[in-house]
């Protein structure tokens, strides 16, 4: 566990050293702030003390930003060869993958932390449903975890960061959109299967304020699958 933290700390520091973190924070806060407060169906237009517009904007911005955060995690190490140094240290492949996951997740959490000023402002000017806000944030964190899992897997299969970015986006798109669209096209069992695979549906049900165990299981399974597959693609060097 200590090694996981050591790796996560270094990774997080390198996000901030390489400006990725700042760009991501500025863009994320800029986008979400703009659409929450100033433009479109923003809070003043809706006229309710609700953060729903923020959550739906964050739902999309994170979908695009997370692959950009995760693309370098393993692909860059593969490209520069530092992966060899890292994996010959007294750490397991799993600890490396977990450390990288933790770093990316913490970065997203930091970004979300800055948006806490939104609910605080709203709570001061209106009657905010605190429970729903907490659920909304939990939903964003769980969703981010799932996409980071996918992103790390995509980053583990290639040494090219662009390839990692695009394949993460491609895989994520299925969960984000395509399964939902398919579920409305099919009726009966296939429809239900696609519906239960759709990340948007699970996110909506959480952000409505109901945390169901099936939703949590759903997000955790994506995370787990992503991390295990990433670990496997690191392990593959032992086989061939």
């Amino acid at each position, binding site marked *: 566990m*200590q*090694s996981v933290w*050591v*790796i996560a700390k*270094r990774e997080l*520091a*390198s996000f901030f*050293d*390489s400006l990725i973190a700042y760009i991501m924070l500025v863009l994320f806060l800029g986008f979400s702030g703009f659409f929450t407060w100033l433009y479109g169906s923003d809070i003043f237009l809706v006229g309710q003390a609700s953060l729903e517009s923020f959550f739906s904007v964050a739902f999309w911005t994170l979908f695009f930003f997370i692959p950009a955060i995760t693309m370098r995690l393993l692909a860059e190490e593969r490209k*520069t*060869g*530092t992966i*060899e*140094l*890292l*994996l*010959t*240290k*007294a*750490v*397991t492949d799993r600890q490396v993958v977990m450390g990288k996951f933790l770093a990316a997740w913490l970065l997203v959490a930091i970004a979300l932390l800055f948006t806490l000023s939104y609910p605080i402002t709203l709570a001061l000017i209106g009657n905010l449903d605190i429970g729903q806000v907490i659920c909304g944030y939990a939903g964003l964190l769980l969703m981010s975890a799932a996409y980071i899992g996918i992103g790390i897997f995509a980053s583990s299969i290639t040494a090219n960061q662009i390839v990692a970015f695009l394949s993460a986006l491609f895989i994520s798109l299925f969960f984000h959109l395509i399964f939902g669209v398919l579920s409305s096209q099919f009726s009966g069992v296939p429809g239900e299967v696609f519906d239960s695979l759709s990340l948007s549906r699970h996110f909506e049900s959480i952000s409505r304020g109901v945390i169901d165990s099936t939703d949590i299981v759903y997000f955790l399974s994506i995370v787990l699958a992503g991390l295990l597959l990433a670990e496997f693609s690191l392990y593959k*060097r*032992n*086989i*061939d």
Partner: protein
Amino acid sequence: MDIRIENLSKKYAAQTAVDRVSFEVRTGEILGFLGPNGAGKSTTMKMITGYIGIGEGDILIGGQSVRQHAGRLKKHIGYLPEHNPLYEDMPVMDYLQFCAALQGVAKDDIPARVHSMIRQCSLDAEKHKKIGELSKGYRQRVGLAQAMIHDPEVLILDEPTTGLDPNQIIEIRRLIRELGKEKTVILSTHILPEVEATCDRILIINKGRIVADGTAESLRRQAAGQEIFLVRIEDAPDDQVLQALPAIPGVTNVSGPDTATGRWEIQAVPGSPARRGLFHLCVEKHWVLTELIPVETRLEDIFRNLTLN
């Protein structure tokens, strides 16, 4: 910790990179691992460090099999991979601290270890610079420092001096010798004077197989099928010399004279009285023998002989 390698093989698809290699390195020994590019040096080293899986056979480090205990053994190994990959965006100090923490150095000991590695590798002036800003020689020192940060018993160095200038090479060699005194060191290279200068023992590998194993001295002796010496004879017509020299007992081949130096190259059976014969010949014919240079078989020649066919 001794390293014992037993019948090690590794295949990449159809190509055999390492083919039934067996050898042993004892504690305190510096083994020079020599071979042309693509001979299987790096593959063997990667297997020892546990970076890639062992194909067939086994590697025992301190009696423990890398197959079963790769995870536990990593702590005892310091590794400098080929091309010395490092995190360019990290300052030297931070990087060494990171490596120490990963290698399980106790938290309280980390500053002391980092400090002592910085001192030993003379990195003091560069310790706050980012690794990407360092010159190649300093990068190499950082590579060595990270490999030895946890004071490992086994040191695996894959071409530690490539790309350095002669002064840096000598410096790095000194460092390896100094730090490797009580450790088991395997050092790969294709620079021949390097092994002579640094290593106690030489292992030459070609196409995945061991073709020679011994000290520089013993390799020379093995390879010395011929005694070679260069001579210069004055006051003698070339055609007469060419006739007379091969007649000396023990001489197997004569060539020359070299147009630039005027020297003849004579090959003879080792231990034969060829040099005495030559002297007497010159005395008898009133030729003047001005030079007689015994030629030591060079390591380069041994290497070429062993790896070219």
